[in-house]
């Protein structure tokens, strides 16, 4: 048992470290290091532009999408090299946030299902950040139950005509392309009538409307489709096999082991370490210490869980299912951490933004936190996944499984 790199890993790490030291946008390092959930803007620069410039620089030097094949803009690196890169990239990795969906989900789906000429045309600019992609799955009628989506695709000659609405589309407002899951046959059960496409977000008939979130920010959008044309060669996978295609997309997401999920613990520890209460330093208060210790072991438990997965990668093995706990644990923890930090501020905790302690860091965290427990699979869906895929418990009884989609009830209580 050790934390040492193999000689090859050490050589790769040294090369990555040297390149980052020479090329990273150092002027933003401190600001990025301090940014936390709900607050990832830069004071004097447009973060989208800074992120795109960094991504392009990486791509030109062969450091973008490390695990992708070279032909598609990647480096052909091993999974462990990708992890080492993330460790070395450190706070600059936060600049990748707007590329995560494209690199983690859209790219791998294109690689598995798109025609060769499309892969060669679309993937390199996706890797280099020159083009941003989004994922158009969720709908008002299909969130956790994504297969319940209603956006229609109807064949007309060599094209498909799209009508409907997507929601919760991260980054649609700055995306160039998207992968789109549609219903092509409503007369068969819901999983069997779906088809996947990719499309240009500038296509006529696509309208993006930002959603104002409960936090006041707008990271997500509604996307409306009115008679949008998609040529058949942009179809991904077979007609009506879209559910299986989407599983590839989601599987790729789960295979990517990030540099760690945000728990808010380092921020809380630092805050308590500097905070004076009426009776003395907060960190010397028994009840504060107890709360901190409980958060500390969750944070370290997550850290070493991901170390175990990385070890499996290092040995060329597939990581085990233990990594599936990360989002579930971190999501509710960061919310509790934010509430506790405000509690320690007492009455002044009610203030927000520049009027608040630490410029409102924990207030921003609090207001953004409910989203983390919902996006990318709610806490409840994550528990179902653990129970069914890890522990082998039976699936829920699905009353709509064998019912043609157009006969599934759409209303709850009669109005």
């Amino acid at each position, binding site marked *: *048992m*050790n934390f040492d790199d193999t000689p090859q890993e050490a050589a790769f790490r040294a090369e990555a470290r040297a390149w980052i030291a020479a090329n990273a946008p150092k002027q933003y390092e401190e600001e990025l290091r301090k940014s936390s959930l709900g607050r990832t803007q830069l004071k004097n620069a447009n973060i989208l532009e800074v992120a795109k410039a960094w991504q392009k620089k990486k791509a030109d030097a062969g450091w973008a999408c490390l695990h992708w094949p070279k032909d598609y803009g990647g480096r052909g690196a091993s999974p462990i090299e990708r992890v080492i890169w993330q460790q070395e990239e450190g706070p600059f990795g936060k600049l990748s946030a707007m590329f995560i969906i494209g690199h983690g989900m859209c790219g791998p789906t294109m690689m598995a299902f798109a025609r060769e000429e499309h892969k060669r045309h679309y993937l390199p600019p996706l890797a280099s950040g020159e083009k941003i992609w989004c994922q158009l799955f969720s709908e008002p009628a299909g969130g956790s139950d994504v297969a319940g989506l209603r956006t229609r695709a109807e064949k007309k000659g060599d094209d498909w005509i799209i009508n409907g609405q997507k929601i919760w589309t991260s980054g649609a407002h700055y995306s160039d392309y998207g992968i789109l899951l549609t219903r092509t046959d409503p007369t068969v059960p819901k999983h069997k009538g779906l088809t996947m496409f990719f499309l240009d977000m500038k296509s006529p008939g696509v309208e993006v409307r930002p959603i104002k979130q409960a936090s006041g920010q707008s990271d997500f959008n509604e996307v409306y489709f009115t008679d949008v044309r998609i040529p058949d060669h942009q179809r991904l996978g077979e007609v009506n096999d879209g559910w299986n295609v989407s599983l590839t997309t989601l599987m790729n997401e789960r295979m990517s082991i990030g540099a760690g999920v945000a728990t808010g613990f380092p921020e809380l520890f630092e805050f308590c370490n500097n905070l004076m209460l009426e009776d003395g330093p907060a960190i010397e208060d028994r009840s504060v210490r107890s709360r*901190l210790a409980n958060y500390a072991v969750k944070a370290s438990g997550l850290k070493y869980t991901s*170390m175990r997965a990385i070890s499996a990668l290092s040995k060329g093995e597939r990581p085990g299912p233990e990594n599936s*706990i990360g989002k579930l644990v971190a999501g509710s923890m960061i919310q509790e951490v934010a509430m506790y930090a405000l509690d320690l501020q007492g009455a002044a905790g009610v203030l927000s933004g520049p009027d608040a302690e630490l410029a409102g860091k924990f207030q921003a965290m609090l207001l953004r936190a409910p989203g983390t427990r919902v996006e990318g699979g709610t806490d409840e869906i994550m*528990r179902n996944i*653990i129970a*069914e895929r890890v522990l082998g418990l039976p699936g829920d009884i699905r009353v709509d499984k064998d019912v043609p989609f157009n006969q599934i009830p759409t209303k709850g209580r009669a109005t």
Partner: protein
Amino acid sequence: MNFDFSDEQKQMRDEARKFLSEQCPPKAVRTVLDGKAAYDKALWKGLAEMGFLGVAIPEQFGGAGAGHLELCVIAEEMGRALAPVPFSSTVYLAAEALMLAGSDAQKQTWLPKIAAGEAIGTLALFEGKGNPSPKAIKLAASGGTLNGTKKPVPDGAIADFAVVAARTGSTGRDADISLFLVDLKGGGVEVKELTSIDLTRGQAEITFTNAKAEPLGATGEGWGIITQVLDRAAVLLAFEQVGGADRALEMGRDYALDRIAFGRPIGSFQAVKHILADMYVSATLARSNCYYGAWALSTNAAELPEAAAAARISATQAFQHCAKNNIQVHGGMGFTWEFDCHMYYRRANATALGLGSLSYWEDALIDRMRKKNAA
């Protein structure tokens, strides 16, 4: 990076699991639970023959000289099987104290006997309520004899010798405390068995009246040694706790698959699934913290005090959480004497206290993190 046990260590884990599933089925645990024996003597002998008692004891002292990573994987299996033997008191406490602070002669006297299953040892630290603290130690040592009472002493009624924490000064500092080795079969030692919430493991009160004792380590260094022993034992016991947590989770999962209610397996209900998913989460967090503790223990890393506290807290929480919810998933049957769920519940709650309770380790963890932060 290889943050995992080696193939040889995993093989040892498989061997230990196989041995314990044959030699320590729930029926054997129940013999002690029902008070028909103080501990499982045949199992104790078998563990010695397998080389498990001396796995971390150097070869020159009769052990296998393997190391603490090997001891960690065995500890996990001991916890999984709820082995009703004085393993933790003898191996994690007494043997570790001897290896840390014993003279060559003391090691030569006791370690080979421990490895051979011929001597049971324990640590006599507590004197009634409260957590480990030098201030709580009143038992006095002078002129090579001890006077005072210790309780609870784990496995005290079956132990052959004890490492005893005693007061040798009155300055109010840690240096007032020294350690002594006492042969519990000698004169001036009175042992009374106490009742525990975990009926598969013994607790005792030991009164020393002019009992002959020899110093273990230098005078005034007792508290430092105890702190180190507790850290080392915390990691090892955490592995037992993780083993127990995993088994409780499996029991709950298996019952949820087999039990039919409302015409379907209860494991198909989300209310039940989510309980089990949360048990998996806490057991996984604990296991990962334990691996870090194992690394720190086996390499004598400077991070050991922090890693040990984190492993201890996380594993205590996980075992308690899994044991109580295993009963919940079982419903009424989980609350019967006949089902094994309560044996895990008892063990989970007893192991949560033995080395100092959660609040003690929470405090210790934050202290240690602060020191690291300041450094």
